[in-house]
């Protein structure tokens, strides 16, 4: 008696039936049918298309897990379908394609596969989760073996893999399907299902029908051929019948002989979208939204069941006969324990011919009847747990129906090795590539340009597009990808492309390496191509300024010159992970040996291409790669300055610290911007140490950027993961560390035979000094003078320390200033060479600005009591205004174009102003000196109380002794003014004078500023020679 019931609107309708809990879904609607198909259903509107839904009983609650187009499973309670937001079964970085569950005597397990190529398996009772990685494309289907030992998965890459859960490794791998780029494009759903009773057989849906594998030795047992691509398959609960759904027909096969025994057609040729066996009937879902229910007794005979009882485990109870309500009497369907009553009737119906099973069945029905009387919902679940009736997934027979308890799990636990688990070793990857299952992908994205691979699947055309960031380097290139190139790298001189080839398989393609040496303008032949040996396939490639290199599966790094001469051959001590290059340096990472507990143990090294007539040594870098616990490398490369850098999957960016050959983290990409979510990822492009910037692409909800349209590159400030990273002091500290490292980079370049970049060096030195002064100020503000002193010890030149002295004096830290003075004297004794005078002077110029800037606020507040000083102050004021303008503009430009340009600009500006200074303020300049030297003194004498005067005199004598008298006297004069203001605020003349001073300052703002600073320099020079 076939029944047809409309349950959904038209669409991809799915069904799942487990232990009497029937779920159907179509489009974004899930329905739960607690009382059978003829009664009311609970409905649930989901977000996006529902891919699968299943019910699991766990911790005395029944949950419904729904996977839709989101990264995690959504959990609802049965049968109310109210959301339980606190419970998520699985979470992936990509949408989940499939999910399976299993409940047997030992455990409750669930497995799911997602678009991020990962399969996750979970033991719900023991909270053990295993991630199975190895597929190269989104997962199509997963199945758990009824014995709970194996997980089987199929993927868009065309492979079927069987995983051993105890070792979390793949034990069987075979290509069965056509490759496709995504779940939507897969020709066949590649559905997998274990034979539900014994798990002895595995049915796999392929394009031409179905394949049945034998569990014990993973051999192909039978091949069922179908005339068209099948849609889905299902095993009957007794394991004796396999149903395969074609477009409009479901064929039923006997699993002993694999002969066709029955077929059911859909109504009006509506396509079939799902099949599911309950115990007494089979449910077929059509795309029209209709469910067809047909009793299995139409085609499953007793003989077949009898035959199928020859199973490895003694099976006590074959099947608890039950069915959905529509195939049961009204009486039963009224009751929400309809299934149990069904089970109770099973014995009478004599569908079970095994005596023992009958006994069990009777025993069970008794308990069930009790349960019915009590009306307890849990008993329904428990009495049925002998057969987990999930239509999609499988179940295992049990000896007796029994309650679950945690104690039972111990049996299984003994079998599994519980020691440290070896972690999966990361495969070779190309920095900046996106996965090759995508139709269009990036082969390479670096600071030179982009290599894109595009496959037009409809026309079967594969092309490679090479774009340069700077069109002046070379125009864009587009070439037909005949050799299936999947690896690529580019420098400003050459492009290298390579195909992976195959080590095994029928074709056994060789790896082909193609190089485009586009800078050789005089040679007609700018391209060359080589084939690697058959036993060696290319895994990574890399192009540097004067060579190209290929890392191979034979652990060789083959270096070619741009024109194709083989110049080096190096064998790396382990499997190569990745390579990157900068200038002539090649940086490679390899696995040193097996890591454990998710950790990788990787080492690295550098090779320099040898060129005649030039000394090129390899950079000295640490031998091991530092990596976060459990992380993998996501990117490897060089900073713009030439320091090796890594980026791992926890989002930490590290660079080599040259001083002690250690790795140190410079940024945490997960916190670099506020709107970063856990499923997002930064795709690294480049790092600039000088500007303290990182360029990366924000991939929302993905690990790789889209190819079209080209995503936008974000340039962000480095955030070193220091303690309290957001405070100003931490920012200064991190900059100081990075700046210090740049000097190391410059040293390393020098050692490797590159010319000195003096400008760069100077600039870095200036930045360091500035950073130290800022830190000193920070320490002073926080009353941590000792910390300030410690920081100032980092300053090398006595002249620089003088800046610190001034700052300390300025802030009234007399003791600190004294100690710093001592320090300066010591330093001066240590290096009495005055060869670097000039440089220092410049430094001081800068520093002076910094100091002045800091002083700004105070000066503005000062009241000026005397005309004599008005002049001086006016200069001060103008200096400040000048400083602030230059400072402002430099900051702007610094953000944008880097320090070199800023410094140039600044110098140019100063030069431009110099003539002014010379012509208009010759006198001022003279005044300056007098002001600095004498005015403060006279001022102090004239209007100060005696104690103050004495103090000042004492200071001055000290300063003079240390050689910084001139400069500090100016500061002291300011201090004096400040003090005097306190003493005599009510002088009426003050305001007028101040006004006039301001006028004066605006008149010769530009001129006096420069003159002041020049005067200061003179003094500084003089003091240093002392």
């Amino acid at each position, binding site marked *: 008696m076939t029944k047809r019931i409309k349950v959904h609107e038209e669409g991809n309708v799915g069904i799942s039936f487990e232990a009497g809990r029937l779920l159907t879904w179509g489009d974004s609607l899930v329905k739960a049918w607690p009382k059978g198909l003829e009664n009311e259903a609970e409905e649930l509107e989901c977000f996006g298309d529902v891919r699968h839904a299943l019910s699991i009983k766990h911790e005395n609650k029944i949950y419904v897990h729904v996977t839709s187009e989101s990264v995690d499973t959504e959990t609802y309670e049965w049968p109310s379908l109210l959301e339980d937001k606190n419970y998520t079964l699985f979470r992936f970085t990509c949408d989940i394609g499939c999910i399976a569950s299993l409940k047997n005597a030992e455990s409750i397990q669930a497995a799911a596969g997602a678009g991020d190529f990962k399969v996750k398996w979970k033991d719900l009772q023991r909270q053990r989760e295993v991630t199975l990685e190895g597929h190269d494309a989104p997962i199509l289907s997963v199945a758990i073996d009824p014995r709970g030992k194996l997980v089987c998965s199929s993927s868009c890459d065309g492979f079927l893999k069987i995983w051993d859960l105890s070792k979390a490794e793949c034990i069987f791998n075979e290509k069965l399907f056509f490759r496709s780029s995504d779940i939507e494009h897969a020709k066949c759903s590649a559905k997998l299902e274990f034979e539900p009773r014994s798990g002895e057989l595995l049915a796999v849906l392929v394009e031409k029908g179905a394949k049945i594998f034998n569990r014990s030795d993973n051999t192909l047992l039978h091949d069922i051929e179908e005339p068209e691509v099948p849609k889905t398959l299902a095993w009957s609960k007794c394991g004796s019948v396999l149903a395969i759904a074609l477009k409009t027909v479901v064929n039923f096969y006997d699993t002993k002989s694999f002969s066709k025994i029955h077929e059911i057609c859909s109504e009006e040729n509506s396509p079939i979208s799902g099949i599911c066996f309950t115990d007494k009937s089979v449910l077929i879902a059509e795309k029209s939204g209709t469910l067809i229910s047909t009793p299995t007794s139409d085609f499953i005979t007793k003989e077949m069941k009898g035959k199928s009882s020859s199973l490895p485990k003694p099976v006590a109870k074959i099947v608890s006969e039950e069915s959905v309500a529509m195939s049961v009497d009204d009486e039963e369907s009224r009751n929400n324990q309809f299934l149990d009553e069904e089970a109770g009737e099973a014995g009478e119906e004599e569908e079970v011919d095994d005596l023992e099973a009958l006994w069990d069945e009777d025993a069970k029905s008794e308990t069930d009847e009790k349960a019915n009387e009590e009306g307890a919902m849990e008993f329904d679940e428990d009495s049925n747990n002998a057969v987990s009736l999930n239509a999609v997934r499988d179940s295992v027979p049990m000896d007796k129906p029994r309650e679950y308890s945690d104690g039972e799990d111990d049996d299984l636990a003994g079998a599994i090795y519980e020691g440290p688990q070896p972690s999966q070793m990361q495969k070779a990857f190309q920095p900046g590539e996106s996965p090759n299952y995508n139709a269009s992908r990036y082969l390479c994205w670096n600071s030179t340009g982009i290599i894109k691979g595009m496959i037009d699947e409809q026309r079967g055309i594969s092309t490679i597009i090479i774009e340069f960031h*700077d069109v002046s380097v070379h125009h864009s290139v587009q070439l037909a990808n005949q050799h299936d190139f999947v690896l690529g790298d580019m420098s400003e001189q050459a492009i290298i492309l390579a195909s992976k080839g195959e080590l095994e398989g029928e074709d056994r393609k060789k790896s082909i390496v193609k190089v485009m040496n586009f800078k050789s303008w005089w040679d007609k032949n700018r391209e060359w191509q080589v084939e690697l040996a058959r036993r060696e396939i290319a895994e990574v490639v890399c192009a540097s300024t004067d060579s190209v290199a290929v890392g191979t599966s034979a652990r060789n790094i083959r270096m070619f010159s741009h024109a194709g001469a083989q110049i080096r051959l190096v064998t790396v001590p382990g499997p190569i992970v990745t390579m990157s290059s900068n200038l002539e340096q090649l940086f490679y990472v390899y696995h040193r040996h097996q890591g454990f507990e998710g950790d990788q143990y990787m080492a690295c090294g550098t090779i320099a291409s040898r060129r005649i007539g030039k000394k090129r040594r390899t950079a000295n870098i640490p031998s091991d790669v530092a990596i976060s616990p459990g992380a993998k490398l996501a990117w490897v490369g060089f900073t713009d300055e030439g320091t090796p850098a890594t980026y791992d999957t926890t989002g930490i960016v590290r660079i080599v610290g040259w001083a002690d050959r250690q790795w140190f983290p410079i940024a945490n990409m997960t916190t670099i911007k506020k709107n970063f979510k856990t499923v997002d990822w930064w795709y690294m492009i480049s790092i600039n140490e000088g500007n303290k910037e990182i360029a990366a692409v924000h991939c929302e909800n993905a690990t790789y950027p889209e190819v079209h349209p*080209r995503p936008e*590159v974000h*340039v962000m400030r480095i955030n070193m993961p220091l303690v309290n990273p957001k405070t100003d002091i931490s920012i200064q500290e991190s900059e100081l560390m990075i700046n210090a490292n740049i000097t190391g980079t410059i040293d390393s370049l020098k050692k490797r035979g590159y010319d000195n970049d003096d400008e760069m060096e100077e600039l870095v030195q200036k930045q360091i000094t500035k950073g130290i002064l800022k830190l000193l100020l920070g320490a002073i503000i926080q009353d941590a003078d000792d910390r300030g002193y410690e920081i100032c010890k980092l300053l090398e030149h006595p002249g620089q320390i003088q800046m610190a002295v001034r700052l300390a004096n300025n802030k009234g830290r007399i003791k600190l200033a004294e100690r710093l003075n001592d320090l300066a004297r010591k330093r001066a004794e240590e290096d009495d060479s005055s060869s670097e005078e000039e440089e220092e002077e410049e430094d001081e110029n800068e520093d002076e600005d910094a100091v002045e800037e800091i002083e700004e606020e105070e000066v503005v507040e000062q009241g000026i009591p005397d005309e004599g000083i008005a002049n001086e102050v006016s200069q001060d004021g103008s200096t400040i205004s000048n400083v602030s303008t230059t400072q402002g503009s430099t900051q702007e430009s610094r953000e*944008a*174009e880097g320090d070199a340009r800023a410094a140039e600009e600044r110098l140019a500006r100063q030069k431009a102003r110099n003539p002014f200074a010379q012509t208009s303020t010759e006198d001022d300049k003279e005044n300056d000196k007098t002001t600095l030297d004498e005015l403060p003194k006279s001022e102090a004498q004239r209007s100060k109380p005696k104690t103050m005067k004495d103090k000042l005199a004492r200071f001055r004598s000290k300063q003079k002794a240390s050689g910084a008298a001139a400069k500090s006297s100016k500061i002291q004069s300011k201090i004096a003014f400040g003090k005097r203001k306190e003493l005599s605020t009510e002088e009426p003349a003050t305001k007028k004078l101040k006004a006039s001073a301001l006028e004066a300052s605006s008149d010769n703002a530009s001129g006096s500023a420069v003159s002041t600073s020049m005067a200061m320099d003179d003094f500084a020079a003089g003091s240093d020679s002392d």
Partner: protein
Amino acid sequence: MATILPCEIEFLAEDELIKVTPRFREARLQMISGNYGPFAPGVPLKIPIWMAMNLKSRGLVIVHQPRWMSAEKLKEWLDSENADNTNAIAPLHYHYREISRMILQNCRDNLSDVTEIEQLIEDIWNVRVSKLKMSCKNVLKERWQNEIPDHGGVFKVNNFTQMEVNFIRANFLKGLNVSFVMSNKITDIEQKAAAHQLADDTTNTSSFPTGSSASTLSQFTQSQTQN
């Protein structure tokens, strides 16, 4: 009745900034409207649209799709536009029509969902302009129904962009003017008629009792309102 031409509005819109990734190296450019740059290959920055279009035509920049110009956001906008029959929704960008036209015309290769966006922009434009027309119609209708309201009728232009308002301005102002002229004439006539009637009434009052004259006056005003 002078109006601004659409191309002139587009000219104004060209001053809006847009994010581009340059493919050349150039120092900071000093323009009247401000300084732009420095340009470094691969480092995105914001420049005015007119500059972007010029550079794009020479293949020197990659223009990034503005955030508001995504099919998703435009769809949302269209939906909310459709939901409200009378009032316009605040536009995603004040120059959405002009900017989208320029970008869609010149930078098709840098965008995604080009055809969809084109269609959506067109739809949004149509919906909004029809709302505007409706509003105009209502103003004119109101004028006729309620004679001449003191405030001259309410014309809602909230949330409409320059392009849209300009699109309707010429015709609407003309219509409004005509309506004013006509209503002025009508009031003139009415006033004259009223004055005439009043004159009659005053002459009548001398001969008839006052009570009846008041009633006739009220009768007259009633008939006038019915007209």
